[in-house]
């Protein structure tokens, strides 16, 4: 099971940060790398149900990603599934994203994004503990 964790601190209060990670008009200000546009989307994490976005780079390459919003707990956390689509619009391996907001002791918001791969069955989940560090070790050996 592969896991990516990104932590940030923002000076803004949790309410404000939550608006930015959940509402369409705010999401579109930051969604995707700088060089990309998002011409097609149904992008909101303030309600359950399907979402998608199509990002286009300067060369005109399209990158579509889609999923389902699985939980909304304002202003604490949101969760949604995630999968890239290939050139034929076939949806690939599904993963899951969770964003958590906690009021920081010194003011502002501590932000944690976790992106984990979902295994096809419970075999990998049974051995989830320690998986990430093991994976890093494997990668280091493979270089």
């Amino acid at each position: 099971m592969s896991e990516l964790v990104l932590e940030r601190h923002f000076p803004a209060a949790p309410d404000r940060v939550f608006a930015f990670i959940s509402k369409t008009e705010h999401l579109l200000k930051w969604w995707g790398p700088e060089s990309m546009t998002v011409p097609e989307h149904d992008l909101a994490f303030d309600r359950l149900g399907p979402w998608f976005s199509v990002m286009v780079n300067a060369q005109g390459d399209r990158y579509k990603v889609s999923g389902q919003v699985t939980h909304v707990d304002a202003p604490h956390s949101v969760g949604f599934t995630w999968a890239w689509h290939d050139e034929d619009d076939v949806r690939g391996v599904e993963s899951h994203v969770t964003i958590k907001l906690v009021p920081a002791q010194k003011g502002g918001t501590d932000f944690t994004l976790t992106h984990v791969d979902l295994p096809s069955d419970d075999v990998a989940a049974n051995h989830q503990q320690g998986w990430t560090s093991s994976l890093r070790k494997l990668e280091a050996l493979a270089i």
Partner: protein
Amino acid sequence: MNENNMPKLTDLFAALGDPVRFAITERLLRDGAQSAGDLRDVAEISAPAISRHLKVLRSAGVISQTIDKQRRIYAVNPASVGSIRAWIDSHEAFWASSLDRLATALQEDKPDE
């Protein structure tokens, strides 16, 4: 961002989720290609059990098998580790650049707009 010729990630993760199979893979990465006999001491299990684990790893695309003078030699399939790394890299790149932009957008935000 999908590589169709790469082993399926879900198969890789399922195969590597077993401690013995993970140990076999780690050994092959560290010490290079080995025969089933060489891998005997990876875990305290029988030779047939090792063979079964090797079969699972092969069908998931984690390792490949070649025949050398009637011996079966196993090695890690580079594409398997590559696809795991590609998964992490593609998402890390997306989120890292997006969160930089989120920080900027929050900075430029006027709370009473």
